[in-house]
């Protein structure tokens, strides 16, 4: 004869309760959009080549993006691929984030990332007493250096800079060096294997406020196509 009792029912109920769980930590997530960033164009036989979509990154919705005109040539590497602005509505202060790439035909032509960091540091007249932080970074297939510094420049007495100087490691670079006869991949791979810099500059207090978002943006920066 089977006996049903209260203990049995409680045991079954507890088993059901134990299997129920949640992984939601309750923190609200910032809404971001995936922005596509195109590579450089070049003048070939008097006409501008088209700009190929090369990179993507996750960008908060309230950042403002600026791109150059489609008719403009970006063969000059001092011009950024695109710029993002973070505006503070109350003070009208802003942070400017610029993305550059530096295509190279050969691996020997690349400039060491340390040189890029030194160039940024040399742009300062004085560095704040807290000094600069530089460290090695590696993400999304890039390796390079990260710089966080603040100080004064001739036109900006209170300037804070967050910067990333990135390159592809040798094996990725070689994987993106196509056979000379492979014309279709040539232009795209030239852009894909280019060195990249991401530089954010603005007033120190605003930079502090947005540092986390800027770092998340930089670390989400990646090539659209994976390395072959």
């Amino acid at each position, binding site marked *: 004869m*089977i*006996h049903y*009792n209260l*203990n*049995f029912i409680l*045991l*079954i109920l507890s*088993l059901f309760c134990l299997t129920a769980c949640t992984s939601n930590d309750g923190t609200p997530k910032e809404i971001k959009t995936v922005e596509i960033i195109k590579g450089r164009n070049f003048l070939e036989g008097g006409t501008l080549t088209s700009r190929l979509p090369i990179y993507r990154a996750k960008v908060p919705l309230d950042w403002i993006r600026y791109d150059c005109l489609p008719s403009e040539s970006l063969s000059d590497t001092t011009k950024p691929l695109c710029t993002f602005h973070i505006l503070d509505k109350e003070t009208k202060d802003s942070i400017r984030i610029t993305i550059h790439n530096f295509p190279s035909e050969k691996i020997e032509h690349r400039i060491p990332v340390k040189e890029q960091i030194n160039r940024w540091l040399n742009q300062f007249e004085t560095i704040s007493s807290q000094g600069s932080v530089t460290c*090695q970074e*590696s*993400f*999304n*297939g*890039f*390796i390079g250096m990260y710089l966080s510094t603040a100080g004064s420049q001739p036109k900006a007495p209170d300037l804070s800079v967050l910067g990333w100087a990135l390159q*592809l*490691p*040798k*094996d*990725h670079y070689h994987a993106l060096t196509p*056979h000379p006869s492979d014309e279709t991949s040539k232009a795209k791979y030239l852009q894909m294997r280019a060195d990249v810099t991401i530089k954010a500059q603005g007033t120190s207090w605003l930079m502090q406020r947005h540092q986390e978002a800027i770092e998340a943006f930089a*670390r989400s920066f*990646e*090539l659209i196509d*994976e*390395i*072959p």
Partner: protein
Amino acid sequence: MGKFLFSLYRFLGSLQCALFLIGTTALFVIVGTVLESFSESHLFAAKLTYSHPLFSLLIWGFFLNILLSSLRRYPFKVKHIPFLITHLGLLMILSGVLVKVYFGTQGTLTLAEGASKQKITRQGEMALLVADHKNPDVEYRVDVHAKGPIPRQKDGLHLHLVNHYPHIKKSYSSWIKDHKLHIFGLSPMPIVNDDDEKIEIPKSSRARFYEGDTPWDIYAIMTHDVGKTFSKLYQQRSDTPLLAFIQDDHQDIYSIFIEKHGGVSAKKFLAEKPSPFISLDKGFKGYATEWILKDKQMDPLEKPLLESVFQVHGKAALAFNLQEKIKDACSTSKELSPPLWMWEMMCLMSSIPFAESFVAFLTDWDDSRGWLYPKEHALAKHLDFSLIPKSDLEASLWSATILEDLDLSDSNEILHNLEQKEWPLVEALKKQEDQNPNALLTLLTQQIFSASHALPLQMISHINEGKAKIFSAYLRAYDIHLSTLMPGNLSDQEKNLLLTHYFESKSALEMREPITLMTSIIPVFQKVQEKIKLEDNVPLIQVVVKKAGALQSIYLDYDQGGNGLKWPILDGQYLLSFKALTQAIPYKIRLRTARQINYPNSTQPHSYESDLIITDLRNGEELEKTISMNEVHETWDGYRFYLASMTPPSLESAKRVQIVVNHDPAKYFLTYPGAIILTLGIVLLFALRPYRHV
């Protein structure tokens, strides 16, 4: 017969059989654990236990035991329900295990940041990869123990596994192959064995590298002692530039260029992996290495070569370096010591270069091996001693006079002579710690200079003769001599630097245009003792390839990572490699970033994390997922992705992770439901206690 079958049926479903199976399984597990610990090899232990057919038989035994123990209860009653539910759960779990064993997948994915893969490497399974110019690469499963034809359907290419070696050591032959020196564009040249009996090493050939230039001598040598052979070669060389390729006992090759002034450019090609490694037509035409002789390039020389070059040119290089230092000192208007100033004045008067002439004087003096300069010197004749204080001149004269009469070769003789001459400060010399003749003489010179005011005046007119000797005595008082100005123990780096500067100054190693020498690279395999740790073994297979009457045999070593070289066959029609078998999965995995999470304020890793983009190739859906050591990603169709390890980044390579991929096709309809049913059965057994005696 029927009785036997019935007894068997009862035994297989009995408690005794269950206990036997549990005991045997426990024994297997114990043996497996001990073997793994002893051999440090999971593969070795698994081969003898978990992957052994007997172990599968045990699982089947469990299945049968549980099934029959349930059937023995027939006809079933209500009180059997909890028991039957429990056994049904167990049977489902065991079925899940068996389905996974026969139809499941276990493999690994090695991914670099920024890259993606959709093929896993199957553990312990090997394949032969065939590539050609047109079609995608194809893999054929290879069982190394089953020699014979490897099934291949396409274009009449027949592959036949001929031999298998469990473990080999691999190296490469580059410049020297089959006892001949091979350089692209030149005929193979014979090799010479350099042994002690041969006084002179004969050249292998000559070749003209620049139009209208003298042909260069080419040497191809095998030796036990590279240093000795190079030294011999360096000494026997003439004014003609020479190229030498010297192979040592480790099969490493030193390629050496010696130009007419004696400047050396050298490069070592390791047998383990010659560098650079160049693929010709993506490997279809094989592999090669090159050596580029560039203008004024003197690469740092390795020990055995460096010593020989330094022995010949070291002194000249040091003298040149000293000369440069003196020039630097003069250009920065540093105050010179009195003897140097006196020489400088003499140079100014005679329009002679100061640094060069002074270093030449020092070198000449050092070559004479005398404590003082022993003879007349053409330039020293013009020295004007009136420029220095009279007391210094007196002291220099006395030093020259006293030291001239001494036997300078032995410390005891020096002291004995000085005692005989009643030198008043001889006791101080005896107490000197360093009784080396040079140290004694330096101290004696300084004593003479300190006591010069107490010494009788010399005939100053004597100084028209032996001016060089007096000047050298003056230099000794300031401890100036080639041996004291030159650094003593030089590191290899310093020696290399000195030689580079020296040969640059002589305009040595001037090339009209760079010369590139190339040679093919071929692998060389050596059979070695198999290791117990099976993971460390590198198996080798021999494959015979046939197509349309053409036949070729090739040896291929196992490429565990699958990123190694493919070797050409049949005149570059195909490429072959022997690698781990890969299997496509319905997902593409892209690694964005891998992180090492450290313990707070420490560099000790606490965990590893990887951000992945997982694309389901069946519907194109993308999922961003972070997996870590303790956070596995599981898909709806039974694929599990574990993060196994991480390799830090370098200039060569981005961070890499190894992900273990496991596919259990029966998980959701057998294993997990079975576990729930089993739990329910156990709960019912405890709660309802159907077998209790009232």
